[in-house]
Structure formats: structure tokens, C-alpha cells
């Protein structure tokens, strides 16, 4: 168990005093659960029999032919709920029960984490309140209805930019008042210690499986792995197992309307160091330290911060970072749908768009893995409005 609360200089625990003891308790409980055979067996069983792990590593024949390299998709879109988020919410909900907490709260952007928390709450018998920005509620109606159907309460957030950042603010305000009986299921590798470590640990199953599957199919490790980055949970879940391997790891951020327009969500590409939601990380902010409004076609990437571990891996040069515009993501959304019969989430479409870009530099024997973090059914309406669906 990691003793430090930081990754290099990043991370820490910048939280209101009221939450400190809860975070220390959480850290202890997570440390115990991490080595508790019974807990791990329960988690493993529920991931296999309920959530549908392992997810396939799909070799994409059409795309491989088109791009001139060997292209694989890690199919987190096939996980129950339609995204990688359930790996983390099942882990945290089990942990909440392990700690004797009787209620779950969560924030959500695209709605995938909210849905995944609602699913975990339903199956494990814990009531769930989900905070969601009013702007995101308007553009992710399907997921709002799914959460309600799953028995969760969806609480609209009207403050600030009415997106993911504000949903986190409101969830934190709830938690400060309810910390005695409530566990905050944070959805990404952000926030105060131990969240970045804990969420990465629960998501690491993605990279573990990918590594094994690639060795089995190809007899060697991939050359390049791409994942989209909002807060960074699917990216860290994928990258973690490959950190010590000679594999190019590329995090792809929301370029929005272009990095030069200021309307984007690319904290690793264009941010500076700062403290938001409990941790020091790269951050989009103005000269005085006020947090910037962000923009992305993908609600799940529309966030001004990014995980501390990703910040560290970027600073140390271990990972590459790139940004993809709304337009390019929308094109990739259509490309994968047509070519492979798989509709990707707009978030994951960012990783695909960058894969299309870098394929020119790869040879026929090079292996490229793209983490397909979620399915795109939730985005079809939004894509159609923006001309991303053929007429």
C-alpha cells in the first residue's frame, strides 16, 4: 500500500477539515480491503458474473486494413452499463458497505458514472443521490432516465458552468454535511488522496486484462496504447499495468473548439499547476487562479482538472498527451460506427480520432490498442444535432 498521498509533486489532500477523518478512515478501509481475501473474492465474483468481465480485446480487421497497422479495441463499452465506470463503482460501493456506510452520493458529467453508481447502489442495496450539472442533464437525457429507472435520485446543479466541475462541488457540499453515514463515490482518478489511488486500483483491471489478452493473441505487448482523458480513470486503468513496459502511452484530451480558442478541456496539454477538488494537478485557470470554464462535445471530458498521477506522468515524460477537437471526435464517432459496427462514446471517440492521426507513422506489424471506454448510444442525439449522423 502506497504511503505517500502524492504522485511526484502532484496530489495531496486539500480538503475541508470536516472531511479529513473520513478520508483517513477511507484510506485505512481501502488498505484493509485491498489485502482482504474475502473482499477481493466478492469483488472479483461480482465483476465476472454481474458486470461481465473480462471484456474482449477486439481485433478490428477493417480499421487495421484501412490504417495499415494492427488495431485492437479494449471493449469497456461491453461492460454492464455501457462504460468502464462500473469497475470503480462496484469496488467503491462494496467498500462503502464494508465501512458500514448506508448511502452513496456521486457526481456525473456524461451520466455514465451516475448510471454506474446507480447500478452498484441497486444491486448492493444502497440508496444513491447523483449530482449532475443542468447543462449536462439537458444533453444526456437518456442517462438521466436510466439513473431514475435504476432508483437513483438525480439532483440538478445550477451553479457555475452547470457541468461536471459544479456537480463535484455540490457532491462535496453534500458530503461535508452527511459524512457520518454517506460514502462519496468519486468517479475518476481525481480528488484528494486516497481517491486517485483507489479509483486507479479498481480500474486497473482494464490494463491487466489487455496485457494478458495481447500477449495471448500477439505473443507480445502493444506498441502504442491510447485512451481519452477527462479526469483520467479509463486512461489510468489502462496505463497502470504498462508503466514499466516499453509501450507508448498516449492520453487524448478534449480540444473542444481548438486549444487556441480557450474553449476546451485539455488540462494536460494546456493547463498550469493548481489545486481543485482536493488535489494539486494540472488545471485550466486564469492568471489569478480562478477556475476556467471548459468546453467539450463530450460531457465526460468537460472538466478543468485532471488526475494527479496523470499530471505526474506527463511532467516526467512517461506519457504523451494530445488534444482532439469536437469536429475530429465527431468524425471518429462516425468512422468507427461505419467501419466496425461499433458506436463509441463521444469521450472514447477522442482516442479513436488521435489513433487515426498517428496511424501514418505506424507499420503493418505495429500493434495499436485503443481503450474504448464506453458505448455511444447516449450520444446519438447530440451527434445528430451537430451533423454527425448521415441524413
Amino acid at each position, binding site marked *: 500500500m502506497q504511503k505517500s*498521498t502524492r504522485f511526484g509533486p502532484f496530489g*495531496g*489532500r*486539500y*480538503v*475541508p*477539515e*470536516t*472531511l*479529513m*477523518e*473520513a478520508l483517513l478512515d477511507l484510506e485505512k478501509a481501502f488498505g484493509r480491503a485491498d489485502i482482504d481475501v474475502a473482499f477481493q473474492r466478492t469483488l472479483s465474483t461480482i465483476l465476472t458474473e454481474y458486470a461481465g468481465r473480462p471484456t474482449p480485446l477486439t481485433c478490428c480487421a477493417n480499421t487495421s486494413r484501412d490504417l495499415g497497422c494492427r488495431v485492437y479495441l479494449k471493449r469497456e463499452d461491453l461492460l454492464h452499463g455501457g462504460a468502464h465506470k462500473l469497475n470503480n463503482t462496484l469496488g467503491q460501493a462494496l467498500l462503502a458497505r464494508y465501512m458500514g456506510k448506508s448511502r452513496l452520493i456521486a457526481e456525473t458529467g456524461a451520466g455514465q458514472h451516475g448510471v454506474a453508481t446507480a447500478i452498484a447502489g441497486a444491486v448492493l442495496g444502497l440508496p444513491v443521490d447523483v449530482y449532475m450539472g443542468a447543462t449536462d442533464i439537458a444533453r444526456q437525457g437518456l442517462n438521466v432516465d436510466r439513473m431514475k429507472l435504476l432508483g437513483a435520485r438525480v439532483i440538478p446543479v445550477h*451553479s*457555475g458552468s452547470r457541468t461536471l*466541475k*459544479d456537480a463535484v*462541488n455540490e457532491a*462535496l*457540499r453534500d458530503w*461535508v*454535511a*452527511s*459524512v*457520518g453515514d454517506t460514502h462519496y463515490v468519486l468517479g475518476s482518478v481525481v480528488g484528494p488522496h486516497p481517491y486517485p489511488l483507489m479509483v486507479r486500483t479498481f480500474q486497473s483491471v482494464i490494463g491487466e486484462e489487455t496485457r494478458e489478452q495481447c500477449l495471448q493473441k500477439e505473443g507480445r505487448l502493444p506498441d502504442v496504447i491510447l485512451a481519452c482523458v477527462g479526469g483520467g480513470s479509463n486512461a489510468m486503468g489502462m496505463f497502470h499495468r504498462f508503466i514499466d513496459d516499453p509501450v507508448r502511452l498516449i492520453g487524448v484530451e478534449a480540444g473542444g473548439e481548438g486549444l487556441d480558442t480557450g474553449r476546451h478541456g485539455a488540462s494536460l496539454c494546456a493547463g498550469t*499547476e*493548481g*489545486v*481543485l*477538488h*482536493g488535489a*494539486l494537478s494540472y*488545471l485550466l*485557470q486564469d*492568471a*489569478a*487562479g*480562478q*477556475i476556467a470554464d471548459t468546453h467539450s462535445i463530450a460531457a465526460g471530458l468537460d472538466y478543468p482538472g485532471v488526475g494527479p498521477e496523470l499530471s505526474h506522468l506527463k511532467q516526467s515524460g512517461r506519457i504523451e498527451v494530445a488534444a482532439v477537437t469536437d469536429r475530429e471526435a465527431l468524425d471518429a464517432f462516425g468512422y468507427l460506427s461505419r467501419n466496425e459496427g461499433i458506436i463509441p462514446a463521444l469521450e472514447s471517440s477522442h482516442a479513436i480520432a488521435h489513433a487515426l492521426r498517428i496511424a501514418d507513422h505506424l507499420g503493418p506489424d505495429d500493434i495499436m490498442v485503443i481503450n474504448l471506454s464506453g458505448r455511444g448510444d447516449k450520444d446519438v442525439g447530440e451527434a445528430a444535432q451537430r451533423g454527425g449522423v448521415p441524413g
Partner: protein
Amino acid sequence: MNRIDRWFGEHTTPAFIGFAVAGDPDPETSVRVANTLVSAGVDILELGMPFSDPVADGPTIQRAGQRALAAGTTPDEVFAVARAIRVSCEVPIVLLTYFNLVWNRGIEVFYRDARDAGIDGIPIVHMPVEESDGVREAASAAGIAPIFLVAPTTSVVRQEAIIARASGFLYLVSVLGVTGVRDRVAEETVSLIRRVRCRTGLPLAVGFGISKPGHAAACCGAGADAVIVGSAIVEIIERHLDDEDAMMDALSAYIFSMRAATGAKPG
């Protein structure tokens, strides 16, 4: 000597600490608000530095922060407001801020600028003692009191750690939750004051949810050295946005009523 230490050294009656967001509704009016609070009998002035993401604050102070930001209240502007207040009085000034604004300016620069603006103490909302080495060093170099919060959830072990590192006063968070007006002082508030009181000689200031004379009296009766009133003051400002003179009159009347309840004799 720091003005906060001097105030508590010279007074045996409890302090009334009044809070307003610097720059609410705009920097110029906010100086007038502060001067009104001081003339009406606030013993220690607490200014909030507006931040885009005020996670510790309830709706009332969130709206005040938005008004201040909309009026162009940068940290530079907040220091200018403090300097303008300092011109006419020696009241201790405490600056409540969020850590990103400190970090972004550079921790040492922030504390130096705060000292030059006449600020005496700085509590940072998201700054548990565990992360505070840098700010305590900068605070000490600038002669500013690093003020820490103690919550009802704070364990005895961490209370001791906080007490060992704090100066000026301890900011007791009276209830679990964000800032905002509440009906009554909770039993947990009284019990928190008693628990901390027996561990330290540092002055204890109770905040979050204190708005009525009865609250102040209950806290002081339990052993608090000060009460901090924020949202109730900010609500008065908000109710009189269209009439500045009425705003000042209402603030004065409210401070008089609260001050009587802390047991302090009018200055």
C-alpha cells in the same frame, strides 16, 4: 505584535467577528460595508476572497462571491479593499481564502502582499494541517497568524496536531455542512467548544450557522472567545443591493443586536 493576539490579550469579553466577501457587491461598496461593520462594533473583520468554486460555502455566500467576481474582484482588488479599510482603523483583519488563489500567486508572495495590505490572519478553507508546512512558513515570515479549522469530526489526535500549529485563534466549525444561516445552535457545537476548550488556551471562534443573538450567547456561554457571523451579514447586503444607505443602516442595526449578545460592552 499581531493585531489578533493584541485584541484577545486586551479583552476578556468575547469578540464579535463579522464576515463579508471582499468585493461584494463591488470593491468600492465593499469598503463601505467593512467600515460600517467596524463602526457598528465588529471586533475583528473577516474578509472572504471570492473564488470561482467555493466548495465550503452555501448558496448565500456563493452568490456573494459571484457578485464580487462579476464586479472584477481579483485577489489584487481584495488586497486593495483591505488596504482601504486599514487606512481608517486598526481592527484586526482576517482573510478567508481558497488555496488555489494562494498557490497561484506563489505562497510567499501571497502572504507578503497580505501583510502589506494590513491583514493579520489567514484561514484557508482546504488546508488541513497535514498539507500546511509551506503556508505556515510563509505566514510566520510575514507575521500573519495561520488560522486552522476544527470540525465536529476532528479526532482528539488531530485536534492536538492542529493546536500545536495554529496561532491567532482556532476556527471551530460549529456544524457539519457548508456555511449558511441555521435556526439553532446544535448540541454538537456546544460539545465541540467544551472539548477543545479543555485542550488549549488559544482563543476559540465559532462559525458556520451563527446568525442570531441567542446563538452567540449560547456559544460564548459554552466557553467560546468569539463568534463569526457570515451568511446573515451577506444576506443583509443582498437584500439591499438597490439601496446602499439602507444596506448600511440595516447592517449597523444587526451588528448592534448581535454585539449585545456576545456580552461585550459597546466600544
